[in-house]
């Protein structure tokens, strides 16, 4: 049976309820992926009584991946429904999600759901998640991740978190939110700029650069307690923190010996060990996922280009050759792909480059792209750019076809960093 026909039916089915989901999440999808699995996600029974719209979160999560078309149900549906899968199949659904949420006597919530395969006419998942009220959004993201994994075989990233900086007038706030940009909490508020947040591999700490002492100093902050410590506050500027994959060391840029150079030091603070020796700028270090090498930016060849050096020091190898300005490297979790920003005709463009040998690929049609970071499953890139005069955060699939804009309150958003799996 031609798939096109099913999708046509679903288009009509989904049109009615697409508007509220878009209004809540502002998931703006531009571009169309090759194939998207149609999944019906019914509103969870009981969710209307609370403030968290679980099913809308699940639908938006699934769509952001670029792998699904997520549609609401036009009839009541929950995990105990005697579901007629043949009927859903006839209406174009490949899979169906039904669930409920109920408040327990101790104040926690029980989130239950089932995932059915409408094609093979069988149940794929049935789960109950008991969570505190503050973790209801997290529970919805975990439902989306489990549906994502069951249907694609790959781990979803919706239950992860991102960090970014918002500037409102002269106030700077470091935000930690769910991967969809919602559920935001403020980790640090300051009258001075904050840049370069970097997640510890355990997902519980952030390193960042704060100018609160009238110079650039690297801090590490525990997210759940707010406890923070200065890890690099040497003479000159201290910036660009990057965690080693085992979480024991930080690579930083220091100017204590003159030019901005790369150093590593213990994550709890300590004596820096100089990694690079040049008369040029060396900065923006990032560890390869195996921890054995460090990618960084240097202008030793004239303009800024991306280089690689062994993490213990040694011979430096140039990585980028196209263009005169290549900065802000990010390495995919499998270590094979470099994302970076290039300057071309006065515009700053998000690019990727296969490290095994390949040509640079441009992913955007915007002109002020900055700060790329990979989702922990390596399937999406998060970056900052400018749209209609506002500084915004976007995600894109690696082929550049599906882009979503993360929530914006109108404030300038910048310096995004995608956190690891753990929370």
């Amino acid at each position, binding site marked *: 049976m031609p798939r096109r026909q099913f999708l046509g039916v679903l288009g009509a089915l989904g049109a009615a309820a697409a508007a509220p989901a878009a209004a809540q999440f502002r998931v703006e999808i531009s571009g169309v992926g090759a194939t998207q699995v149609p999944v019906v996600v019914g509103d969870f029974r009981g969710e209307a009584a609370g403030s968290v719209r679980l099913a809308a979160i699940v639908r938006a999560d699934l769509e952001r991946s670029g792998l699904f078309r997520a549609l609401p149900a036009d009839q009541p549906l929950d995990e*105990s429904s*005697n579901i007629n899968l043949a009927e859903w199949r006839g209406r174009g659904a490949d899979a169906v999600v039904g669930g409920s949420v109920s408040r327990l006597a101790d104040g926690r919530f*029980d989130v239950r759901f089932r995932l059915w395969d409408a094609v093979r006419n069988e149940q794929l998942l*049935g789960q109950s998640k008991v969570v505190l009220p503050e973790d209801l959004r997290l529970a919805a993201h975990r439902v989306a991740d489990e549906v994502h994994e069951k249907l694609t075989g790959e781990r979803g990233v919706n239950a992860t978190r991102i960090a970014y900086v918002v500037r409102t007038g002269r106030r700077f706030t470091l935000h930690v939110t769910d991967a969809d940009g919602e559920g935001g909490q403020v*980790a640090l*508020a300051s009258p001075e700029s904050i*840049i370069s947040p970097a997640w510890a591999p355990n997902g519980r700490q952030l390193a960042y650069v704060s100018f609160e002492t009238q110079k650039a100093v690297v801090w590490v902050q525990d997210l759940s307690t707010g406890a923070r410590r200065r890890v690099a506050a040497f003479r000159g500027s201290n910036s660009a923190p990057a965690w080693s994959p085992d979480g024991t060391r930080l690579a930083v840029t220091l100017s204590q010996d003159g030019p901005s150079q790369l150093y590593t030091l213990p994550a709890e603070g300590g004596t820096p060990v100089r990694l690079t020796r040049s008369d040029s700028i060396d*900065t923006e270090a990032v560890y390869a996922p195996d921890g054995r090498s460090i990618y960084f*930016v240097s202008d030793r060849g004239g303009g800024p280009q991306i280089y690689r050096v062994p993490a213990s020091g040694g011979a430096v190898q140039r990585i980028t050759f196209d263009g005169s300005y290549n900065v802000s490297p990010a390495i995919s979790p499998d270590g094979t792909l470099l994302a970076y920003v290039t300057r071309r005709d006065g515009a700053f463009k998000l690019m990727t480059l296969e490290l095994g040998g390949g040509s640079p690929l441009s992913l955007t049609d915007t002109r002020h792209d900055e700060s790329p970071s990979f989702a922990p499953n390596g399937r999406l890139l998060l970056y900052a750019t400018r749209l209609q005069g506002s500084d915004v955060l976007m995600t894109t699939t690696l082929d550049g076809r599906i882009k979503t804009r993360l929530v914006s309150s109108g404030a300038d958003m910048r310096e995004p960093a995608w956190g690891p799996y753990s*929370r």
Partner: protein
Amino acid sequence: MKQHTRWTRLLATPLAALMLVLAGCETTQLDEPTAAPVESRKPVAGTAGAAGGTPGAAAAGTPQSQVATVDLAGQGAAGAAARAAAPSQRIVYFDFDSFAIKNEFNAMLDGHARALAASRDKRMVVEGHTDERGSREYNLALGQKRAEAVVRSLALLGAGEQQLEAVSFGEERPAVPGSDEEAWSRNRRAELKDR
């Protein structure tokens, strides 16, 4: 029908099922669907056991989503006042992508160097700045290079190295707002500040 074969094949993967079980201790598998209500939920203490986390690491009753806020408001007033008070004859302007100190600033730098040489307990911080274009971290390093150039110049003119510190604000603290060459040229600068 490509994705059908793709994900039905994956359903057969025991690993996928195992990973779901490991994904969180708070999660309970429901029985196969029947008309009967689901009752397989086991008692759970707090929210221990985030995916990939250490079971029990989160205190019972602490939301996994919790982030504590640190607010530094109030610390910035002194800094703001100091910035406003900086006189314009303490600023060196730079060309695009350049660290070269133009001749027009030599007399001014000479004056500051003499003042520093005359009183060796005097301290000065030189702040480098860039325009807004490009990477924030790279701009921070560019601003540092400008500040270093001014510090070297002051030292050559007689100031003591120990009296001087070069720091950078990169593009974080523009002197004037705007996204045109007029604004950018006012923002590519190094400011000399007593402290």
